[in-house]
């Protein structure tokens, strides 16, 4: 998963040397996430923003940061790398690596230690309702599922996401 995040970062930073086949789109979205393990519960609804990069015809990567409210003020940093269909309707599937920071409910160890920060999850995200146009894209109901240490799992729903290119 570190390699995935590294690759996402490499792609985002490669903007400087972007060739003709790399398209970079700033994105914003509404999102909700629920992370639960035997040590930590993070949850909330909120919004965020980031960058989506399409390389060539089918390769797509996205990195974004989000704030989540419901169980304190939590933050997520998401890295995703995937493939999408060509055309106007561009459903995509991503492999994801998420980091969660900020406030959460913690279960201590028997020795009284607090769980580490941040917590992370690795998983998949499907974006079946993703549409591309000349000036950007729009996507609704993106569904993600991840697994995490300590019998953890993560669910995320991006309700609406969009980006504009210029």
């Amino acid at each position, binding site marked *: 998963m*570190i390699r995935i995040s*590294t690759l996402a970062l490499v792609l985002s930073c490669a903007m400087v040397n972007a060739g003709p086949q790399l398209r970079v789109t700033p994105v914003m979205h509404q999102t909700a996430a629920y992370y*639960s*393990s035997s040590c930590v519960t993070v*949850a909330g609804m909120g919004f965020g923003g980031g960058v989506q990069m399409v390389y060539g015809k089918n390769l797509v990567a996205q990195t974004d940061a989000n704030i989540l409210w419901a*169980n304190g003020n939590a933050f997520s940093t998401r890295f995703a790398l995937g493939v999408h269909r060509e055309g106007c309707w561009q459903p995509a599937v991503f492999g994801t690596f998420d980091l969660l920071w900020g406030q959460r409910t913690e279960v*201590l160890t*028997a020795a*009284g*230690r607090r769980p580490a920060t941040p917590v992370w999850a690795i998983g998949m995200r499907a974006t079946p309702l993703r549409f591309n146009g000349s000036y950007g894209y729009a996507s609704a109901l993106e569904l993600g599922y991840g697994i995490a240490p300590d019998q953890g799992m993560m669910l995320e729903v991006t309700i609406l996401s969009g980006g504009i290119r210029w």
Partner: protein
Amino acid sequence: MKLLHIGAIVPFFILCCSPSAPDINGAGVAVEVADDVVTANLMPWIEKLAAVRMMDTHVNCEGFKEEELFPACDLNRDAAVKLVTEAFTSMGFKADTIALGEGPQTAYNITAEYPGTTRPDEVLLVASHLDAYYTGADDNSSAVAATLETARAVRKHSFARTIRFMAFDLEEFGCLGSTRYFEAGHGHDVVAAIVMDMIGYASYKSNSQKSIMGIKLPDKGDFLLVIGNEASATMTQRMVAMGNTFDLAKLVGIIAPGDGGYFLSMAFMRSDHGLLWYNGIPALFLTDTANFRNPNYHKTTDIPATLDPDFLASNTRALAAAVAIFAEVQK
């Protein structure tokens, strides 16, 4: 190369943020206080309270709606007020009744103090509520008994801080007794608190423990939950570490986010510590998780025979040790 460095930040940050163990220096002396808890003293208090509660009149329930888990018109407290007052007095404390409010729902809070030696103006509050539905063995005679036995045990020792033992009234009516107590300014000198609500019911069967609002807990209900918020995180860590390390009791610690007043942590606010949390005063909440474990919660079946005396004794020992360490027991 520069880009590789950016990618390396993520695993480095995960590693560098691993937390350290809490400081439990001085726990050895605190355990000596715990050793003064007498197991045989606990259940008789609960049986006496159950007996007098059965004969007691009910608190006027005007303004409260009766529901399955909140039989508002079956709340009693008068006999418990009398018994708890007499219990503190018999141990040599000066017990005071602080009446707050007006009319039939006046709250009668009982307080008894053990003065600190070097910093008597700093008060550690040790509290449980004395009102109960029906016989109220677990809810909340178990915690009242632990309060009384801890009060008896600490008198053999001296502490830097004052320990204020309290039995709050009308917790079941929305923490009326404690809310009025703090709003009237009586708690201005409280620097830390331990509040208990139901600490005597255990089950050793699998799946006897339900999760609380999605928080994963062990599936056997054989532990005491020690709940803190961000302000009392260190207290929570210390009590859990001490209790488990010295085998005083089986403790599971939870830290709620922020002040605890968020949607997913509201279940952790259900007792007299809530106002302390909102006001930023470090407070621990000890519980057997109430209806998330005990099927007798707020029912006529909440009787002494359903409690686990050994579990209650262990929890009382952990309480006494925590009181000792937070009131700064002196060697």
